[in-house]
């Protein structure tokens, strides 16, 4: 399936593709990174997200880079962004451009933050590995609940292109049942059918811990990710194409 750029007609679609090429995601992310660094951005940890107050030029960058969601408030010069835990940890641990406070205990070290998030959410190490794996390849990763998956994955900003994949995070060795997905056939039928209907492919990210624990974010480096797509093959439609299957 080819990327589906957005636009009313062919010309507009070409335009969206050209714009994306002119402004690659890696460039946007590094602009965001230096901007947040310069302003010594600091968010705070709330239940299962991170709140970050930003000034106007960063609103634009966060939006372009597809991090978080703006929250409407009456405050004039400041906009609050709500970051998912994966997004926040990526900015903090991988891009090193965000500090995170936790209520009373001040700025958290990477280790402290990791432990805190993990205590609330056992699957976080897997989800973060999956998120960062795709982000590091400059794919845009957004929550996928609306499509019944863990993430939706875009080639560029969602304003320019439709997402190509709906992603599920599974454990390779299945030492623990992560989120109970794809354990029954009906779920495989359901997910491929739903995603097929909205022109997405089911992407499964098998996270293999390779025997490592998850005590520290340093362990992440030893985790590996296997990508597989699950698609339905329809023999009625493949007869003529011969070898293509």
């Amino acid at each position, binding site marked *: 399936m080819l990327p*589906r750029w957005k636009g009313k007609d062919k010309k507009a679609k070409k335009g969206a593709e050209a714009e994306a*090429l002119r402004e*690659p*995601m*890696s460039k946007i992310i590094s602009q965001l990174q230096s901007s947040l660094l310069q302003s010594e951005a600091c968010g705070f940890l709330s239940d299962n997200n991170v709140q970050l107050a930003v000034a106007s030029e960063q609103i634009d960058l966060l939006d372009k880079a597809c991090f978080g969601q703006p929250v409407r408030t009456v405050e004039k010069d400041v906009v609050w962004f709500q970051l998912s835990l994966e997004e926040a940890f990526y900015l903090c641990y991988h891009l090193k451009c965000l500090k995170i406070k936790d209520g009373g205990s001040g700025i958290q070290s990477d280790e402290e933050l990791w432990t805190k998030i993990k205590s609330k959410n056992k699957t976080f190490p897997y989800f973060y590995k999956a998120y960062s794996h*795709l982000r590091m*390849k*400059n*794919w845009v990763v957004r929550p996928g609940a609306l499509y019944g998956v863990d993430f939706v*994955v875009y*080639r*560029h900003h969602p304003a320019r292109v*439709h997402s190509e*994949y709906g992603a599920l995070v*599974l454990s*390779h*060795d*299945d030492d623990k049942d992560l989120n109970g997905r*794809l*354990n*029954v*056939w009906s*779920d*495989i*039928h359901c997910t*491929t*059918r*739903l995603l*097929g*209907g*909205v*022109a997405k492919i089911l*992407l*499964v990210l*098998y996270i*293999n811990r390779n025997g490592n624990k998850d005590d520290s974010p340093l362990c992440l480096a030893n985790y590996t990710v*296997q*990508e*597989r*797509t*699950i*698609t*339905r*093959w*329809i*023999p*009625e*439609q*493949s*007869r003529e194409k*011969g*070898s293509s*299957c």
Partner: protein
Amino acid sequence: MEDKAWGYCSSEEDVDDNNTDLHLQNASDDEQNHHFSSHSFPKFQPRVAKSKGVWKDEIGMAEIIEKNGKMWVTTGICRSNKTYSSIEETVYLMELGALQLLEDGGDRSLSLVDMYQKVLGRTRGCCWEQFEVYRHLKYLGYIVGRHGVFWSLKGIRSSHKTVTLEDSKESKQLVDMGCKVELPIDDLFNELQINDLRPDFDVYPPNSRFKKSSPGDPSFLLYLARSHPPSRTGIEIEALEKQCDGIPLKIGRVTGGQVSFFSFDKVELPVLP
């Protein structure tokens, strides 16, 4: 399939932003399985000249003693100038009315019911679901053989000379007429050992020039899923892929008479700019 008299369940498909052109994948689903009324139920013309076979219970195959029709180009395996058909091939041809099957050593004809019972008995390396998958693909013109069973030994002698099989293994292959190791029924329901996983069928695309002596590589190998999806999909799919020699693998699944196929393809998303 063309006769779509029952329009009531046509698509009320998911509506995404602008993807009206994207329902191709699922379109055929709605056209299948809607021939209730007898006039549209597919019936086969009984053949005038049937082939004849003798059921050999000890090898779980039929020895073909009279061949009529072109289907033998893509059906049955050849061993020392004889043709043997597996149970799924035998039953399929009987359903088409293309094969008359005789009891071994007797004159009695075996009926379709006799043979269905053998399939249901699961003792001939083929269970009912496997038969359904086989039949589904055959209807569509695919060429289907048991995985790892040579169509003919001629091809092997000529084209596989360089392959050095151990003596014991080779002779085992020669004797192996295509039946899987007979598994106790329980094992088919329980999770098989990872290492015991092996594809069920070799599937070739429809090809009028197919030759048993040089079949070429199958376009994919088919593994028929048991009751649940591979629970440790990552590991199980890998174990199956190891036996595929780089040939694509597909997973077949049968439920309620519907056959579906899935690919679990390893991919690597590119690094974007």
